[in-house]
């Protein structure tokens, strides 16, 4: 019985990845929040449609978010990431921007962080880690909370 329990446990921890409370899955429905780390991809599909797209988090373009302790004195403060949208044989670069001096956006806000392109609405709701001003974040450690809807 003990090997079965260990096997069950291994299956559980390998099938679920977690970043900031969001489960990473290989297949995500459109409209569902997911987290993605640099150099990782997910496929996103619709329950009513057999088509799907793949999203690959290729890189951080820049992270100029002001350290939170300096928000009183700062203007601007943005970060930008690049996603690859793979739709059948077509590949497109999608650049998403998020503003600093806050933690996370709500999807129902009509805010600056979203982009409508190629028939989809992309939301970049959160980007971790937030720079603390003392050291540069290694680009491979970034994790983005994203939501994608069909338009």
């Amino acid at each position: 019985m003990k090997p079965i329990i260990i096997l069950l446990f291994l299956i559980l921890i390998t099938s679920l990845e977690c970043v900031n409370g969001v489960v990473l899955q290989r297949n995500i429905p459109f409209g569902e929040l997911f987290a993605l780390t640099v150099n990782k991809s997910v496929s996103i599909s619709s329950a009513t449609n057999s088509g799907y797209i793949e999203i690959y988090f290729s890189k951080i373009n820049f992270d100029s978010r002001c350290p939170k302790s300096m928000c009183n004195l700062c203007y601007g403060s943005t970060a930008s990431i690049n996603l690859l949208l793979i739709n059948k044989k077509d590949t497109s670069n999608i650049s998403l921007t998020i503003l600093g001096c806050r933690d996370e956006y709500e999807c129902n806000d009509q805010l600056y962080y979203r982009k409508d392109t190629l028939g989809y609405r992309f939301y970049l709701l959160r980007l971790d880690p937030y720079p603390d001003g003392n050291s540069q974040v290694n680009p491979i450690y970034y994790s983005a909370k994203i939501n994608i809807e069909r338009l």
Partner: protein
Amino acid sequence: MKHIKYKIVLLFLVNWLVTFGQSPGFCGTPSNIPNFLNNLNKSFQTPQNSYVIGIYLHVMRTSAGTGGQTQAELNTAFNTLVSDYQAYNITFKLLGTDIINNDSYYSQTNFTTDNNGDGKFDNFTVNTHSNAIDIYLFANDKLNFGLASNIPGTALVIGGSAFGINLASSHVLSHEVGHCLGLFHTFHGTWTYEALGSCPELVNGTNGTTCGDFVADTPADPARIYECGTQSTCSWNCSSSYIDANGQHYNPDTHLFMAYTFPNCMNHHTSGQVSRMFNTIANSTLLSNTVISCQTTTITNEVFSNSTTITDCKIDISNSSIINNSNVILDIAEEATINGSFEVQNGSSLEIQ
């Protein structure tokens, strides 16, 4: 068997905690810069009617001397700053410009704000001047923000772009200078990272001088206008979503320099903000050191054949002419005097600001 079931339940519980029990990562250290004017230990100094503030512009380039702001962008930055403050009797005198060729500085992104009280950034003191506000203009692809050293302070860095606008030569420069001269963001005290929950300004204005940005005539501002605004029309679209403690809807001014509005929308300070700047300049030793006493530039028998701007507290000009389709701007803090003959040829112009 019962023991095994217990283990399985425990395993699932551990897995659930690992998956869903993580903190969302709130780790902000909300800044809480004190209200300078409330913390004066000495007697209150009455401000002058006008001020001329000395500034130095520093252009950041690579060690090879490449990159960075062009001379034209430098001129635009200075003229924008002067233009933005001229209506308020605050003039800026350019005491000098230098070019800092240094790869390390050129790419620097981390700046420690003023904690030692000298008005400058603690970790960035290249070519500083105690008698001026040091303005460091970074390249249009660096920083992507503007940052003042303190409130009040005598240094700022600015570069890169936001909302498709190069910040260094935009009104955001005037925003950062506003911090240096004593102004807070209009949403200070309300926004999460601006003195966390400490003192939100009410829409009815009853706590306008003690909360928010400590300025009564700036409308209460709940958040960052550009997050819920339309850049082309400078409108704010979230009035229905934000209410204050009395249940009143916010209606922030989307054109204030000190709001988080789009750079192209910034165009004024309120009279309360101007008063606060004057009181801060008069009572801050750091800023008083940057004030240039009123001096007079005297120009006699000059033929202006190129466009130029002359900046001083007072300007006396006599027996001179402007030719060759040139535009001469007299940028004064107090008065301009024209004596004797003064000719402006057809196609040329004289502008007094």
